Protein backbone atom coordinates (compact mmCIF):
# COMPACT_ATOMS: atom_id res chain seq x y z
CA UNK A 1 0.00 0.00 0.00
CA UNK A 2 1.15 3.56 -0.74
CA UNK A 3 2.47 5.73 2.04
CA UNK A 4 0.31 8.65 3.12
CA UNK A 5 3.14 10.27 5.02
CA UNK A 6 6.89 9.76 4.92
CA UNK A 7 9.36 11.41 7.30
CA UNK A 8 13.08 11.10 6.54
CA UNK A 9 15.76 12.34 8.97
CA UNK A 10 13.47 14.88 10.62
CA UNK A 11 15.25 17.08 13.15
CA UNK A 12 13.79 19.97 15.10
CA UNK A 13 15.82 22.52 16.99
CA UNK A 14 14.61 25.46 19.04
CA UNK A 15 16.48 28.54 20.22
CA UNK A 16 19.75 29.64 18.71
CA UNK A 17 21.20 33.12 18.71
CA UNK A 18 21.43 34.16 22.36
CA UNK A 19 19.19 31.40 23.68
CA UNK A 20 20.74 27.94 24.01
CA UNK A 21 20.12 25.67 21.03
CA UNK A 22 18.00 22.66 21.97
CA UNK A 23 17.36 19.74 19.63
CA UNK A 24 14.00 18.17 20.38
CA UNK A 25 13.85 15.57 17.58
CA UNK A 26 17.03 13.73 16.53
CA UNK A 27 16.44 12.40 13.05
CA UNK A 28 13.05 10.72 12.81
CA UNK A 29 12.37 8.22 10.02
CA UNK A 30 8.73 7.18 9.87
CA UNK A 31 6.19 6.11 7.24
CA UNK A 32 2.45 5.79 7.62
CA UNK A 33 0.76 3.53 5.09
CA UNK A 34 -2.71 4.17 3.67
CA UNK A 35 -5.33 2.79 6.07
CA UNK A 36 -3.06 2.41 9.09
CA UNK A 37 -4.38 2.98 12.61
CA UNK A 38 -1.27 3.91 14.58
CA UNK A 39 -0.65 5.09 18.13
CA UNK A 40 2.15 7.48 19.01
CA UNK A 41 3.21 7.04 22.63
CA UNK A 42 5.99 8.29 24.82
CA UNK A 43 6.63 10.02 28.12
CA UNK A 44 5.98 13.74 28.60
CA UNK A 45 8.72 15.85 27.05
CA UNK A 46 9.70 13.17 24.57
CA UNK A 47 8.77 15.44 21.64
CA UNK A 48 5.39 13.89 20.73
CA UNK A 49 3.64 17.23 20.31
CA UNK A 50 6.47 18.64 18.24
CA UNK A 51 6.45 15.58 15.98
CA UNK A 52 2.68 15.82 15.64
CA UNK A 53 2.91 19.52 14.75
CA UNK A 54 5.51 18.79 12.08
CA UNK A 55 3.42 15.95 10.62
CA UNK A 56 0.41 18.28 10.74
CA UNK A 57 2.34 20.94 8.76
CA UNK A 58 1.76 23.37 11.62
CA UNK A 59 5.49 23.98 11.96
CA UNK A 60 8.34 23.19 9.59
CA UNK A 61 11.20 20.82 10.53
CA UNK A 62 14.71 22.22 10.97
CA UNK A 63 16.12 19.43 8.87
CA UNK A 64 14.86 16.39 6.96
CA UNK A 65 12.25 15.55 4.36
CA UNK A 66 8.50 15.31 4.74
CA UNK A 67 6.31 13.94 1.95
CA UNK A 68 2.53 13.97 2.34
CA UNK A 69 0.33 12.24 -0.26
CA UNK A 70 3.23 12.40 -2.67
CA UNK A 71 3.93 16.13 -2.18
CA UNK A 72 7.16 17.31 -0.55
CA UNK A 73 6.13 19.70 2.23
CA UNK A 74 9.17 20.26 4.45
CA UNK A 75 10.32 23.55 2.91
CA UNK A 76 7.01 25.15 1.93
CA UNK A 77 5.88 28.60 3.02
CA UNK A 78 2.92 29.28 5.29
CA UNK A 79 0.30 29.67 2.54
CA UNK A 80 1.31 26.45 0.76
CA UNK A 81 1.34 24.49 4.04
CA UNK A 82 -2.08 25.92 4.88
CA UNK A 83 -3.40 24.65 1.54
CA UNK A 84 -1.96 21.16 2.07
CA UNK A 85 -3.37 21.01 5.63
CA UNK A 86 -6.78 21.80 4.30
CA UNK A 87 -6.57 19.23 1.52
CA UNK A 88 -4.96 16.23 3.21
CA UNK A 89 -5.20 16.53 7.00
CA UNK A 90 -7.82 16.32 9.70
CA UNK A 91 -7.18 17.39 13.30
CA UNK A 92 -8.68 16.18 16.56
CA UNK A 93 -7.49 18.08 19.62
CA UNK A 94 -7.43 16.96 23.25
CA UNK A 95 -9.89 19.63 24.36
CA UNK A 96 -12.05 19.12 21.25
CA UNK A 97 -11.75 22.88 20.51
CA UNK A 98 -15.10 23.32 18.85
CA UNK A 99 -15.82 26.93 17.92
CA UNK A 100 -18.28 28.19 20.54
CA UNK A 101 -19.95 30.74 18.23
CA UNK A 102 -21.11 28.03 15.79
CA UNK A 103 -23.58 25.15 15.98
CA UNK A 104 -22.50 21.49 15.89
CA UNK A 105 -23.37 21.28 12.17
CA UNK A 106 -21.49 24.50 11.38
CA UNK A 107 -18.47 23.21 13.31
CA UNK A 108 -18.49 20.05 11.20
CA UNK A 109 -18.71 22.14 8.02
CA UNK A 110 -15.88 24.43 9.12
CA UNK A 111 -12.92 22.71 7.35
CA UNK A 112 -14.68 23.09 3.97
CA UNK A 113 -15.92 26.60 4.83
CA UNK A 114 -12.45 27.69 5.97
CA UNK A 115 -10.64 26.21 2.97
CA UNK A 116 -13.06 27.15 0.16
CA UNK A 117 -14.69 30.19 1.72
CA UNK A 118 -18.18 28.75 1.17
CA UNK A 119 -20.20 25.53 1.49
CA UNK A 120 -22.76 24.07 -0.91
CA UNK A 121 -25.78 21.82 -0.45
CA UNK A 122 -23.72 18.64 -0.95
CA UNK A 123 -21.41 19.72 1.90
CA UNK A 124 -24.39 20.26 4.18
CA UNK A 125 -25.80 16.86 3.33
CA UNK A 126 -22.45 15.22 4.07
CA UNK A 127 -22.06 17.07 7.40
CA UNK A 128 -25.57 16.04 8.48
CA UNK A 129 -24.87 12.45 7.47
CA UNK A 130 -21.63 12.45 9.48
CA UNK A 131 -23.45 13.73 12.56
CA UNK A 132 -26.13 11.08 12.09
CA UNK A 133 -23.45 8.41 11.84
CA UNK A 134 -22.15 9.30 15.31
CA UNK A 135 -25.68 9.51 16.71
CA UNK A 136 -25.89 13.29 16.97
CA UNK A 137 -28.47 14.02 14.27
CA UNK A 138 -30.86 15.70 16.71
CA UNK A 139 -28.05 17.81 18.16
CA UNK A 140 -27.00 19.35 14.83
CA UNK A 141 -28.32 22.83 15.63
CA UNK A 142 -27.10 22.99 19.23
CA UNK A 143 -24.22 25.14 20.42
CA UNK A 144 -21.16 23.23 21.71
CA UNK A 145 -21.86 24.29 25.33
CA UNK A 146 -25.19 22.44 25.14
CA UNK A 147 -23.42 19.14 24.43
CA UNK A 148 -21.70 16.68 26.83
CA UNK A 149 -17.95 16.09 26.69
CA UNK A 150 -18.35 12.84 24.75
CA UNK A 151 -20.76 14.44 22.32
CA UNK A 152 -18.42 17.36 21.76
CA UNK A 153 -15.53 15.01 21.01
CA UNK A 154 -17.69 13.06 18.55
CA UNK A 155 -18.50 16.33 16.78
CA UNK A 156 -14.77 17.08 16.70
CA UNK A 157 -14.06 13.65 15.15
CA UNK A 158 -16.53 14.06 12.31
CA UNK A 159 -15.30 17.62 11.81
CA UNK A 160 -11.83 16.14 11.21
CA UNK A 161 -13.38 13.79 8.60
CA UNK A 162 -15.47 16.44 6.83
CA UNK A 163 -12.99 17.41 4.10
CA UNK A 164 -12.14 13.72 3.35
CA UNK A 165 -8.56 13.93 4.68
CA UNK A 166 -5.92 11.33 3.84
CA UNK A 167 -4.61 11.41 7.38
CA UNK A 168 -6.27 12.26 10.70
CA UNK A 169 -3.95 13.43 13.48
CA UNK A 170 -5.40 13.12 16.98
CA UNK A 171 -3.69 14.68 20.00
CA UNK A 172 -4.85 12.75 23.09
CA UNK A 173 -8.43 12.70 21.82
CA UNK A 174 -9.68 10.89 24.93
CA UNK A 175 -7.48 12.73 27.43
CA UNK A 176 -10.22 14.54 29.26
CA UNK A 177 -12.99 11.94 28.99
CA UNK A 178 -14.04 9.29 31.53
CA UNK A 179 -12.98 5.68 30.84
CA UNK A 180 -16.23 4.51 29.29
CA UNK A 181 -16.65 7.58 27.07
CA UNK A 182 -12.98 7.35 26.10
CA UNK A 183 -13.43 3.72 25.05
CA UNK A 184 -16.54 4.67 23.00
CA UNK A 185 -14.74 7.53 21.23
CA UNK A 186 -11.76 5.28 20.52
CA UNK A 187 -14.03 2.58 19.15
CA UNK A 188 -15.66 5.14 16.87
CA UNK A 189 -12.32 6.17 15.37
CA UNK A 190 -11.40 2.52 14.92
CA UNK A 191 -14.70 1.87 13.15
CA UNK A 192 -14.22 4.82 10.79
CA UNK A 193 -10.73 3.54 10.04
CA UNK A 194 -12.05 0.07 9.15
CA UNK A 195 -15.04 1.22 7.14
CA UNK A 196 -13.56 4.19 5.25
CA UNK A 197 -9.88 3.28 5.24
CA UNK A 198 -8.96 6.70 6.69
CA UNK A 199 -5.43 6.70 8.13
CA UNK A 200 -5.18 7.68 11.82
CA UNK A 201 -2.23 8.65 13.98
CA UNK A 202 -3.26 8.98 17.61
CA UNK A 203 -1.13 10.39 20.39
CA UNK A 204 -2.16 8.73 23.65
CA UNK A 205 -0.97 8.11 27.19
CA UNK A 206 -3.38 5.23 27.69
CA UNK A 207 -1.43 1.97 27.27
CA UNK A 208 -4.59 -0.10 26.99
CA UNK A 209 -5.92 2.02 24.12
CA UNK A 210 -2.51 2.08 22.47
CA UNK A 211 -2.36 -1.73 22.61
CA UNK A 212 -5.61 -1.94 20.69
CA UNK A 213 -4.10 -0.01 17.78
CA UNK A 214 -2.71 -1.82 14.75
CA UNK A 215 0.69 -0.23 15.22
CA UNK A 216 2.53 1.50 18.03
CA UNK A 217 5.23 4.11 17.49
CA UNK A 218 7.15 4.95 20.67
CA UNK A 219 9.09 8.18 21.02
CA UNK A 220 11.70 8.52 23.78
CA UNK A 221 13.92 11.57 24.15
CA UNK A 222 13.36 12.66 20.59
CA UNK A 223 14.14 9.33 18.94
CA UNK A 224 11.91 6.45 17.86
CA UNK A 225 12.12 3.14 19.79
CA UNK A 226 10.70 -0.08 18.37
Amino acid at each position, binding site marked *: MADVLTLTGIRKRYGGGKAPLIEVLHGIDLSLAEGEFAALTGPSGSGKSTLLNIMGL*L*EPPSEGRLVIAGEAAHDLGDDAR*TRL*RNRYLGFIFQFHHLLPA*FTALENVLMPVF*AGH*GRVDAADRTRAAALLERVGLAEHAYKQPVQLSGGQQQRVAIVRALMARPRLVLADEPTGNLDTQTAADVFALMREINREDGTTFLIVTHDARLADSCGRQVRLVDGSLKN
Partner: protein
Amino acid sequence: MFVPTVAWRLMREGRFQSWLILAGVTLGVAVVVYITAIVSGLQANIIDKTLSTQAHVTLKPREDVNLRQITVPEGETLLAEVETRTQRENTIGNWQRLKAAADTVPGVAASAALASGPGFVVKGGVRKSVVLMGVELADYQRIVPLESKLRAGRLRLASGDVMIGTELARDLGLKVGDRLRVVTATGSAESYTIAALLDFGLKDLSRRWLLMPLRSAQNQLGYRLDISEIYLRADDLFDAEALAAAAAARTGLDADSWQETNSQLVTALRSQSASSNMIKVFVTLAVALGIASVLVVSVVQKQREIGILRAMGTPGARIRAVFLLQGALYGLAGSLLGSALGAALALGFTRIARNTDGSPLFPVVVTPSLFVVTALIATAVGVLAAWAPARRAARLDPVEAIRG
Protein backbone atom coordinates in the same frame (compact mmCIF):
# COMPACT_ATOMS: atom_id res chain seq x y z
CA MET B 1 -19.30 33.99 2.79
CA PHE B 2 -16.70 32.77 5.29
CA VAL B 3 -15.42 36.26 6.14
CA PRO B 4 -18.76 37.98 6.87
CA THR B 5 -20.15 34.93 8.68
CA VAL B 6 -17.15 34.49 10.97
CA ALA B 7 -16.81 38.25 11.55
CA TRP B 8 -20.46 38.52 12.54
CA ARG B 9 -20.37 35.46 14.83
CA LEU B 10 -17.28 36.70 16.64
CA MET B 11 -18.87 40.12 17.16
CA ARG B 12 -22.05 38.48 18.43
CA GLU B 13 -20.05 36.26 20.75
CA GLY B 14 -18.31 39.27 22.31
CA ARG B 15 -21.63 41.09 22.57
CA PHE B 16 -20.74 43.30 25.53
CA GLN B 17 -17.54 44.61 23.91
CA SER B 18 -19.34 45.05 20.61
CA TRP B 19 -22.07 47.19 22.18
CA LEU B 20 -19.54 49.27 24.09
CA ILE B 21 -17.43 50.13 21.06
CA LEU B 22 -20.53 50.69 18.94
CA ALA B 23 -21.74 53.19 21.56
CA GLY B 24 -18.31 54.84 21.49
CA VAL B 25 -18.26 55.17 17.71
CA THR B 26 -21.87 56.40 17.74
CA LEU B 27 -21.07 59.18 20.23
CA GLY B 28 -17.94 60.19 18.32
CA VAL B 29 -19.79 60.38 15.03
CA ALA B 30 -22.68 62.22 16.69
CA VAL B 31 -20.28 64.91 17.95
CA VAL B 32 -18.76 65.32 14.49
CA VAL B 33 -22.16 65.46 12.76
CA TYR B 34 -23.55 67.86 15.38
CA ILE B 35 -20.59 70.24 15.14
CA THR B 36 -20.63 70.11 11.34
CA ALA B 37 -24.37 70.81 11.18
CA ILE B 38 -24.23 73.66 13.70
CA VAL B 39 -21.07 75.32 12.35
CA SER B 40 -22.03 75.10 8.69
CA GLY B 41 -25.55 76.29 9.54
CA LEU B 42 -24.15 79.19 11.54
CA GLN B 43 -21.61 80.15 8.89
CA ALA B 44 -24.08 79.87 6.02
CA ASN B 45 -26.47 82.03 8.02
CA ILE B 46 -23.86 84.68 8.83
CA ILE B 47 -22.65 84.82 5.22
CA ASP B 48 -26.23 84.88 3.98
CA LYS B 49 -27.15 87.76 6.29
CA THR B 50 -24.01 89.69 5.47
CA LEU B 51 -24.41 89.25 1.72
CA SER B 52 -28.13 89.92 1.68
CA THR B 53 -27.36 93.65 1.32
CA GLN B 54 -24.01 93.37 -0.47
CA ALA B 55 -22.73 92.49 -3.89
CA HIS B 56 -20.31 89.59 -4.18
CA VAL B 57 -18.02 91.87 -6.17
CA THR B 58 -18.13 95.66 -6.43
CA LEU B 59 -16.51 97.43 -9.40
CA LYS B 60 -15.44 101.01 -8.70
CA PRO B 61 -13.56 103.74 -10.57
CA ARG B 62 -9.82 103.32 -10.40
CA GLU B 63 -8.32 105.38 -7.58
CA ASP B 64 -6.21 108.42 -8.49
CA VAL B 65 -2.59 107.87 -7.53
CA ASN B 66 0.49 110.06 -7.68
CA LEU B 67 2.86 109.22 -10.49
CA ARG B 68 6.46 110.26 -9.97
CA GLN B 69 7.38 112.95 -12.51
CA ILE B 70 10.97 113.56 -11.51
CA THR B 71 13.62 111.09 -12.59
CA VAL B 72 16.56 111.01 -10.18
CA PRO B 73 19.99 111.14 -11.86
CA GLU B 74 22.48 108.37 -11.11
CA GLY B 75 24.25 108.81 -7.73
CA GLU B 76 21.90 111.49 -6.44
CA THR B 77 19.29 111.25 -3.76
CA LEU B 78 15.84 112.79 -3.85
CA LEU B 79 14.19 113.90 -0.64
CA ALA B 80 10.50 114.36 -1.18
CA GLU B 81 7.38 114.52 0.94
CA VAL B 82 4.48 113.30 -1.15
CA GLU B 83 0.94 113.99 -0.08
CA THR B 84 -1.68 111.41 -0.91
CA ARG B 85 -4.07 112.81 -3.47
CA THR B 86 -7.55 113.81 -2.56
CA GLN B 87 -9.91 111.49 -4.40
CA ARG B 88 -12.17 113.44 -6.63
CA GLU B 89 -15.78 112.41 -6.80
CA ASN B 90 -14.94 109.80 -9.40
CA THR B 91 -17.52 108.19 -11.63
CA ILE B 92 -17.70 105.52 -14.31
CA GLY B 93 -18.50 106.83 -17.77
CA ASN B 94 -19.64 104.73 -20.70
CA TRP B 95 -20.74 102.19 -18.15
CA GLN B 96 -23.10 100.18 -20.37
CA ARG B 97 -20.09 98.87 -22.29
CA LEU B 98 -18.18 98.03 -19.07
CA LYS B 99 -21.22 96.35 -17.49
CA ALA B 100 -21.64 94.21 -20.62
CA ALA B 101 -17.93 93.34 -20.47
CA ALA B 102 -18.25 92.31 -16.81
CA ASP B 103 -21.22 90.11 -17.72
CA THR B 104 -19.01 88.08 -20.07
CA VAL B 105 -16.60 87.11 -17.27
CA PRO B 106 -17.19 83.38 -16.58
CA GLY B 107 -18.90 82.87 -13.23
CA VAL B 108 -20.77 86.18 -13.19
CA ALA B 109 -24.46 85.50 -12.63
CA ALA B 110 -25.83 89.04 -12.70
CA SER B 111 -24.73 92.68 -12.74
CA ALA B 112 -26.33 95.98 -11.76
CA ALA B 113 -25.37 99.62 -12.20
CA LEU B 114 -25.51 101.91 -9.16
CA ALA B 115 -25.29 105.68 -8.85
CA SER B 116 -24.79 106.39 -5.16
CA GLY B 117 -23.81 109.44 -3.15
CA PRO B 118 -24.62 111.49 -0.04
CA GLY B 119 -27.67 113.65 0.47
CA PHE B 120 -30.33 114.75 2.94
CA VAL B 121 -33.97 113.99 3.44
CA VAL B 122 -35.93 116.97 4.62
CA LYS B 123 -39.27 116.64 6.36
CA GLY B 124 -40.96 119.18 8.56
CA GLY B 125 -37.74 121.12 9.05
CA VAL B 126 -35.77 118.01 10.12
CA ARG B 127 -32.75 117.02 7.98
CA LYS B 128 -31.54 113.44 7.97
CA SER B 129 -28.31 112.38 6.30
CA VAL B 130 -28.92 109.55 3.81
CA VAL B 131 -27.24 107.65 0.98
CA LEU B 132 -28.95 108.05 -2.38
CA MET B 133 -28.85 104.71 -4.18
CA GLY B 134 -29.94 105.07 -7.78
CA VAL B 135 -30.68 101.65 -9.29
CA GLU B 136 -32.52 99.89 -12.07
CA LEU B 137 -34.81 97.85 -9.87
CA ALA B 138 -34.89 94.60 -11.89
CA ASP B 139 -31.07 94.48 -12.12
CA TYR B 140 -30.58 95.43 -8.49
CA GLN B 141 -32.95 92.75 -7.22
CA ARG B 142 -30.83 90.09 -8.90
CA ILE B 143 -27.96 91.24 -6.65
CA VAL B 144 -29.83 92.17 -3.48
CA PRO B 145 -33.18 90.36 -3.11
CA LEU B 146 -35.76 92.76 -1.72
CA GLU B 147 -38.91 90.61 -1.36
CA SER B 148 -37.92 89.38 2.10
CA LYS B 149 -37.09 92.93 3.20
CA LEU B 150 -40.40 94.49 2.15
CA ARG B 151 -42.37 95.64 5.20
CA ALA B 152 -44.99 97.90 3.58
CA GLY B 153 -46.02 99.09 0.10
CA ARG B 154 -44.88 97.58 -3.19
CA LEU B 155 -41.48 97.06 -4.80
CA ARG B 156 -41.67 99.73 -7.47
CA LEU B 157 -39.31 102.43 -8.71
CA ALA B 158 -41.18 104.42 -11.33
CA SER B 159 -40.07 107.98 -11.91
CA GLY B 160 -40.73 109.97 -8.70
CA ASP B 161 -40.74 106.88 -6.44
CA VAL B 162 -38.40 106.12 -3.56
CA MET B 163 -38.12 103.16 -1.22
CA ILE B 164 -36.80 103.96 2.25
CA GLY B 165 -35.70 102.02 5.31
CA THR B 166 -38.06 101.34 8.21
CA GLU B 167 -35.88 103.23 10.70
CA LEU B 168 -35.81 106.39 8.58
CA ALA B 169 -39.58 106.14 8.22
CA ARG B 170 -39.97 105.90 11.99
CA ASP B 171 -37.54 108.80 12.65
CA LEU B 172 -39.46 111.08 10.31
CA GLY B 173 -42.92 109.65 10.94
CA LEU B 174 -43.36 108.63 7.28
CA LYS B 175 -45.54 105.92 5.74
CA VAL B 176 -46.17 104.55 2.27
CA GLY B 177 -47.67 107.17 -0.04
CA ASP B 178 -46.19 110.12 1.88
CA ARG B 179 -43.98 112.58 0.05
CA LEU B 180 -40.48 113.60 1.08
CA ARG B 181 -37.85 116.03 -0.18
CA VAL B 182 -34.31 115.02 -1.06
CA VAL B 183 -31.50 117.56 -1.35
CA THR B 184 -27.88 117.01 -2.35
CA ALA B 185 -24.58 118.88 -2.22
CA THR B 186 -25.06 120.04 -5.84
CA GLY B 187 -28.01 122.11 -4.59
CA SER B 188 -30.54 119.92 -6.34
CA ALA B 189 -33.80 119.35 -4.48
CA GLU B 190 -36.57 116.99 -5.60
CA SER B 191 -39.76 115.56 -4.08
CA TYR B 192 -40.60 111.84 -4.18
CA THR B 193 -43.44 109.52 -3.18
CA ILE B 194 -42.66 106.65 -0.81
CA ALA B 195 -43.45 103.40 -2.64
CA ALA B 196 -42.22 100.93 -0.05
CA LEU B 197 -40.68 100.54 3.41
CA LEU B 198 -37.77 98.08 3.60
CA ASP B 199 -36.01 96.44 6.53
CA PHE B 200 -32.38 95.91 5.46
CA GLY B 201 -31.57 93.79 8.53
CA LEU B 202 -29.16 96.35 10.00
CA LYS B 203 -30.57 99.45 11.73
CA ASP B 204 -27.88 101.70 10.33
CA LEU B 205 -28.73 100.69 6.75
CA SER B 206 -32.46 100.98 7.40
CA ARG B 207 -31.83 104.52 8.64
CA ARG B 208 -29.65 105.64 5.71
CA TRP B 209 -30.44 103.81 2.51
CA LEU B 210 -32.72 105.45 0.02
CA LEU B 211 -33.45 103.48 -3.15
CA MET B 212 -34.48 105.61 -6.11
CA PRO B 213 -34.53 105.37 -9.92
CA LEU B 214 -31.07 105.50 -11.48
CA ARG B 215 -31.88 108.56 -13.59
CA SER B 216 -33.05 110.57 -10.54
CA ALA B 217 -29.88 109.79 -8.57
CA GLN B 218 -27.66 110.64 -11.55
CA ASN B 219 -29.41 114.00 -11.88
CA GLN B 220 -29.37 114.91 -8.22
CA LEU B 221 -25.76 113.83 -7.65
CA GLY B 222 -24.54 115.61 -10.77
CA TYR B 223 -23.19 112.46 -12.40
CA ARG B 224 -24.86 113.27 -15.74
CA LEU B 225 -24.93 109.85 -17.47
CA ASP B 226 -22.21 108.31 -15.29
CA ILE B 227 -22.59 105.88 -12.43
CA SER B 228 -20.48 105.20 -9.34
CA GLU B 229 -20.39 101.39 -9.03
CA ILE B 230 -21.21 98.15 -10.83
CA TYR B 231 -22.41 95.32 -8.59
CA LEU B 232 -21.74 91.69 -9.58
CA ARG B 233 -23.24 88.47 -8.31
CA ALA B 234 -21.10 85.31 -8.56
CA ASP B 235 -22.43 81.84 -9.37
CA ASP B 236 -20.40 80.55 -6.44
CA LEU B 237 -19.89 83.18 -3.78
CA PHE B 238 -16.60 81.62 -2.67
CA ASP B 239 -15.20 82.29 -6.16
CA ALA B 240 -15.68 86.03 -5.62
CA GLU B 241 -11.97 86.80 -5.15
CA ALA B 242 -10.96 85.18 -8.43
CA LEU B 243 -13.96 86.74 -10.09
CA ALA B 244 -12.98 90.20 -8.82
CA ALA B 245 -9.51 89.85 -10.33
CA ALA B 246 -10.94 88.68 -13.66
CA ALA B 247 -13.53 91.46 -13.78
CA ALA B 248 -10.92 94.09 -12.90
CA ALA B 249 -8.68 92.86 -15.70
CA ARG B 250 -11.54 92.83 -18.21
CA THR B 251 -12.99 96.29 -17.37
CA GLY B 252 -9.97 98.27 -16.14
CA LEU B 253 -11.93 99.21 -13.01
CA ASP B 254 -11.00 98.50 -9.38
CA ALA B 255 -12.78 95.42 -7.97
CA ASP B 256 -13.45 94.45 -4.36
CA SER B 257 -14.72 91.00 -3.42
CA TRP B 258 -17.01 90.54 -0.42
CA GLN B 259 -14.14 88.77 1.33
CA GLU B 260 -12.00 91.94 1.08
CA THR B 261 -14.87 94.15 2.17
CA ASN B 262 -15.57 91.87 5.18
CA SER B 263 -12.06 90.65 5.93
CA GLN B 264 -12.63 90.45 9.69
CA LEU B 265 -15.70 88.28 9.19
CA VAL B 266 -13.80 86.01 6.81
CA THR B 267 -10.97 85.66 9.35
CA ALA B 268 -13.47 84.83 12.11
CA LEU B 269 -15.19 82.20 9.96
CA ARG B 270 -11.85 80.64 9.01
CA SER B 271 -10.74 80.43 12.66
CA GLN B 272 -14.05 78.88 13.59
CA SER B 273 -13.72 76.30 10.81
CA ALA B 274 -10.14 75.54 11.86
CA SER B 275 -11.06 74.92 15.49
CA SER B 276 -14.10 72.81 14.65
CA ASN B 277 -11.97 70.80 12.22
CA MET B 278 -9.44 70.27 14.97
CA ILE B 279 -12.16 68.90 17.25
CA LYS B 280 -13.37 66.59 14.47
CA VAL B 281 -9.88 65.26 13.82
CA PHE B 282 -9.27 64.46 17.49
CA VAL B 283 -12.68 62.85 17.95
CA THR B 284 -12.00 60.72 14.84
CA LEU B 285 -8.63 59.70 16.28
CA ALA B 286 -10.25 58.75 19.58
CA VAL B 287 -12.83 56.64 17.73
CA ALA B 288 -10.07 54.92 15.72
CA LEU B 289 -8.09 54.15 18.88
CA GLY B 290 -11.23 52.78 20.52
CA ILE B 291 -11.95 50.42 17.63
CA ALA B 292 -8.30 49.34 17.50
CA SER B 293 -8.10 48.58 21.22
CA VAL B 294 -11.32 46.54 21.21
CA LEU B 295 -10.06 44.51 18.25
CA VAL B 296 -6.64 43.97 19.84
CA VAL B 297 -8.35 42.53 22.92
CA SER B 298 -10.67 40.47 20.72
CA VAL B 299 -7.72 38.94 18.83
CA VAL B 300 -6.12 37.88 22.13
CA GLN B 301 -9.41 36.47 23.47
CA LYS B 302 -10.13 34.57 20.27
CA GLN B 303 -6.61 33.34 19.61
CA ARG B 304 -7.50 29.70 20.27
CA GLU B 305 -10.37 29.88 17.77
CA ILE B 306 -8.10 31.63 15.29
CA GLY B 307 -5.51 28.87 15.82
CA ILE B 308 -8.08 26.14 15.15
CA LEU B 309 -9.27 27.90 12.01
CA ARG B 310 -5.66 28.23 10.83
CA ALA B 311 -4.94 24.54 11.62
CA MET B 312 -7.98 23.52 9.55
CA GLY B 313 -6.51 25.35 6.59
CA THR B 314 -7.90 28.90 6.74
CA PRO B 315 -5.47 31.15 4.82
CA GLY B 316 -3.98 33.99 6.87
CA ALA B 317 -5.44 36.55 4.45
CA ARG B 318 -8.94 35.25 5.19
CA ILE B 319 -8.39 35.69 8.94
CA ARG B 320 -7.10 39.21 8.32
CA ALA B 321 -10.20 40.02 6.27
CA VAL B 322 -12.42 38.86 9.16
CA PHE B 323 -10.97 41.51 11.48
CA LEU B 324 -10.80 44.25 8.84
CA LEU B 325 -14.48 43.65 8.17
CA GLN B 326 -15.24 43.92 11.88
CA GLY B 327 -13.53 47.32 11.93
CA ALA B 328 -15.54 48.42 8.87
CA LEU B 329 -18.79 47.21 10.44
CA TYR B 330 -18.15 49.07 13.70
CA GLY B 331 -17.37 52.21 11.69
CA LEU B 332 -20.38 51.89 9.39
CA ALA B 333 -22.95 50.94 12.05
CA GLY B 334 -21.60 53.61 14.42
CA SER B 335 -21.75 56.24 11.69
CA LEU B 336 -25.39 55.44 10.87
CA LEU B 337 -26.48 55.59 14.52
CA GLY B 338 -24.20 58.57 15.21
CA SER B 339 -25.47 60.53 12.20
CA ALA B 340 -29.05 60.05 13.39
CA LEU B 341 -28.13 61.07 16.94
CA GLY B 342 -26.04 64.06 15.82
CA ALA B 343 -28.76 65.29 13.45
CA ALA B 344 -31.38 64.89 16.19
CA LEU B 345 -29.20 66.89 18.61
CA ALA B 346 -28.63 69.63 16.03
CA LEU B 347 -32.34 69.87 15.18
CA GLY B 348 -33.12 69.86 18.91
CA PHE B 349 -30.70 72.75 19.30
CA THR B 350 -32.66 74.86 16.82
CA ARG B 351 -35.77 74.29 18.94
CA ILE B 352 -34.03 75.58 22.06
CA ALA B 353 -31.95 78.37 20.56
CA ARG B 354 -34.55 80.81 19.31
CA ASN B 355 -34.79 84.52 18.68
CA THR B 356 -37.06 86.61 20.88
CA ASP B 357 -39.75 86.35 18.19
CA GLY B 358 -39.64 82.52 18.36
CA SER B 359 -37.93 81.94 15.02
CA PRO B 360 -34.82 79.69 15.07
CA LEU B 361 -31.55 81.55 15.74
CA PHE B 362 -30.18 80.01 12.58
CA PRO B 363 -31.05 76.95 10.49
CA VAL B 364 -28.72 73.95 10.95
CA VAL B 365 -27.48 72.35 7.75
CA VAL B 366 -28.21 68.60 7.72
CA THR B 367 -27.72 67.31 4.18
CA PRO B 368 -27.73 63.74 2.81
CA SER B 369 -24.15 64.31 1.63
CA LEU B 370 -23.10 64.89 5.24
CA PHE B 371 -24.40 61.42 6.10
CA VAL B 372 -22.80 59.77 3.08
CA VAL B 373 -19.42 61.41 3.66
CA THR B 374 -19.56 60.58 7.37
CA ALA B 375 -20.40 56.93 6.66
CA LEU B 376 -17.55 56.63 4.13
CA ILE B 377 -15.00 58.24 6.45
CA ALA B 378 -16.13 56.24 9.50
CA THR B 379 -15.94 52.96 7.54
CA ALA B 380 -12.49 53.82 6.23
CA VAL B 381 -11.35 54.79 9.74
CA GLY B 382 -12.72 51.47 11.05
CA VAL B 383 -10.74 49.51 8.44
CA LEU B 384 -7.55 51.48 9.17
CA ALA B 385 -8.01 51.04 12.92
CA ALA B 386 -8.44 47.29 12.39
CA TRP B 387 -5.28 47.06 10.32
CA ALA B 388 -2.79 46.29 13.10
CA PRO B 389 -5.03 43.86 15.05
CA ALA B 390 -5.98 42.07 11.81
CA ARG B 391 -2.35 41.67 10.81
CA ARG B 392 -1.58 40.29 14.23
CA ALA B 393 -4.44 37.79 13.97
CA ALA B 394 -3.30 36.64 10.52
CA ARG B 395 0.25 36.09 11.75
CA LEU B 396 -0.70 34.07 14.83
CA ASP B 397 1.25 30.81 14.97
CA PRO B 398 -1.48 28.13 15.12
CA VAL B 399 0.61 25.96 17.47
CA GLU B 400 1.07 28.79 19.97
CA ALA B 401 -2.49 29.97 19.57
CA ILE B 402 -4.07 26.58 20.30
CA ARG B 403 -1.74 25.88 23.21
CA GLY B 404 -2.21 29.41 24.64
